[in-house]
């Protein structure tokens, strides 16, 4: 094992930039900005945070390539793309924060968001169980704080606590599963684990370990039946936090699962593309994916709260993404990354719209969006692009994401096996999804505004964020090869 500290340093430059940025935000806020007004401090912290994210993004583009530090980290195309994707979604989430109501202690908020982002970028590149666990916990602990940060609202504390309790349990499951895998294979490096697993016949202890790891992944990805925290967190957390949790953490999480499952547990993947099923984690993942799509789509139908609706739609998208993970082994990560990234942009954009509306009044119920077209045509246009992309309407990016993921899953075994049936189910449920997304749009476009509702002024930062996200959605929808040709 060659330990090359210089390459390690070069590989970790984006994380370094984020940490230095976080410390700079805190330092400035404690020293220079202390005497200035609250709103100036707010803007300065966000600007420093955004600068750190941009620098980290540039450094992520031009780092070393291949295994780093004896294979502890791997910087392949997926890792680099996910890092850049996570950082751009962090930028959008900072835009969400900037366009919403002012939070107290903004410097701490931005610093914790940068810590979370560094955990997520590390998750994207890890290839060893210890670093994987540490990166996941760095990201998760920061996300719990972000969810409970908004002390002005009692819901936030509750959302944070629920997120923490569920997430902590998931972490314990993950650690227990990892410990069993370490015991069975004697290694914590994913390629070596795969080699050792291939040499031995799978035993019952391995199945227990796999189930524990999958339970933890289900919690983290908010897949049914482990989804219970998601609606509460999306509803209670500050809008910026919800946007970040829904977008960046989901993208990094999917890359993380894909890496661990396909690099580490490849020999015990099993098969679900045709009957009879071969035991392994693929059939379990397929079952979780199908259940998530059902629970997510039918749960969303019953919602009257826009954030809970987005949460249930996130659960159903998790199902589709987990379905995409199954196809990675044969057809590459391109479709999965494209889907996760464009989904992140669309959902972060939708939260940004909510955040802007919230400035001039509450935005919890779907009816709070009533008459948005008269109050702010630009916001309505952006909201239409984001929700239609989430629903999967061509030519927006959401359509092509779903299309490419489902096509790659179908190529596994056609319509003859359980995975093929799940694709049919997913396509049928897309029609259900279209219904609840159109309810949101109907409120915004058709329903008249409530009495006394005023025009909403869209601040320049918010307008830039929204325009950027909307342009990305349209552009990537028209030219999917911009991303797919990378893989």
């Amino acid at each position: 094992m060659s330990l090359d500290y210089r390459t390690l340093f070069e590989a970790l430059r984006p994380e370094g930039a984020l940490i230095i940025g976080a410390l700079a935000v805190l330092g400035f806020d404690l020293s220079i900005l202390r005497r200035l007004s609250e709103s100036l401090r707010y803007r300065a912290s966000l600007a420093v945070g955004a600068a750190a994210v941009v620098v980290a993004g540039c450094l992520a583009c031009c780092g070393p390539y291949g295994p780093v530090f004896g294979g502890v980290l791997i910087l392949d195309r997926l890792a680099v793309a996910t890092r850049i994707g996570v950082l751009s979604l962090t930028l959008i989430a900072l835009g969400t924060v900037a366009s919403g109501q002012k939070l107290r202690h903004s410097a701490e908020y931005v610093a914790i968001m940068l810590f979370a982002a560094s955990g997520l970028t590390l998750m994207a590149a890890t290839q060893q169980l210890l670093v994987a666990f540490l990166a996941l916990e760095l990201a998760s602990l920061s996300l719990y704080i972000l969810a409970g940060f908004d002390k002005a609202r009692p819901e936030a504390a509750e959302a944070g606590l629920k997120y923490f309790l569920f997430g902590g349990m998931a972490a314990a499951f993950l650690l227990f599963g990892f410990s069993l895998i370490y015991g069975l294979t004697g290694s914590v490096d994913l390629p070596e684990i795969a080699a050792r697993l291939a040499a031995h016949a799978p035993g019952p202890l391995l199945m227990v370990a796999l189930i524990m790891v999958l339970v933890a992944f289900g919690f983290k990805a908010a897949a049914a039946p482990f989804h219970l925290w998601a609606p509460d967190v999306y509803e209670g957390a500050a809008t910026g936090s919800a946007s970040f949790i829904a977008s960046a953490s989901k993208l990094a999480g999917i890359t993380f699962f894909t890496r661990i499952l396909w690099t580490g547990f490849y020999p015990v993947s099993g098969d679900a593309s045709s009957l009879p099923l071969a035991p392994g984690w693929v059939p379990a993942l397929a079952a979780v994916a199908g259940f998530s799509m059902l629970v997510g789509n039918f749960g969303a139908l019953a919602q009257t709260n826009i954030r809970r609706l987005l949460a249930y739609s996130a659960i159903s998208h998790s199902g589709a993404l987990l379905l995409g993970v199954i196809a990675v082994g044969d057809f590459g990560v391109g479709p999965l990354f494209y889907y996760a990234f464009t989904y992140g942009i669309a959902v972060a954009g939708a939260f940004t719209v909510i955040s802007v509306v919230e400035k001039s009044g509450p935005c919890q119920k779907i009816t709070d969006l009533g008459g948005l077209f008269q109050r702010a045509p630009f916001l309505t246009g952006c909201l239409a692009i984001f929700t239609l992309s989430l629903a999967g309407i061509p030519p927006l990016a959401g359509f092509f994401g779903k299309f490419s993921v489902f096509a790659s899953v179908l190529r596994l075994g056609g319509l003859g096996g359980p995975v093929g049936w799940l694709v049919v189910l997913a396509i049928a449920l897309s029609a259900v999804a279209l219904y609840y997304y159109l309810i949101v749009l109907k409120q915004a476009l058709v329903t008249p505004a409530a009495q006394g509702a005023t025009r909403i002024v869209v601040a320049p930062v918010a307008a830039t964020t929204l325009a950027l996200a909307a342009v990305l959605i349209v552009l990537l929808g028209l030219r999917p090869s911009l991303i797919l040709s990378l893989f």
Partner: protein
Amino acid sequence: MIHHPLELCLVFSSLLFCIGLAGALSRSNSILVLLGIELMLNAANLNFVAFWRYGPSPAPATGIVFVAFSVAVAAAEAAVGLALVISIYRRQRSIRLQEAVRLKG
């Protein structure tokens, strides 16, 4: 009947994990749920130490290093958890989870 010490360790850690899980799922006091989660994490730590000590390849200190890190992570987790418990206590003057029902649906 004498068992291999590794088996005994695994049985003990599985029991510890189950007790922690049962506690975390059944308690209504959020600090006791936190305790349950800590028990589960410690069960996993015990596994790492046992596999490191009695496993087939005891030479590298991987297991023990993993435990050192995960103890630190558990401490950080407890700190964040207690902070969240305090922030909810300030609002509702109680840390019972039955009363944390603002968010529902």
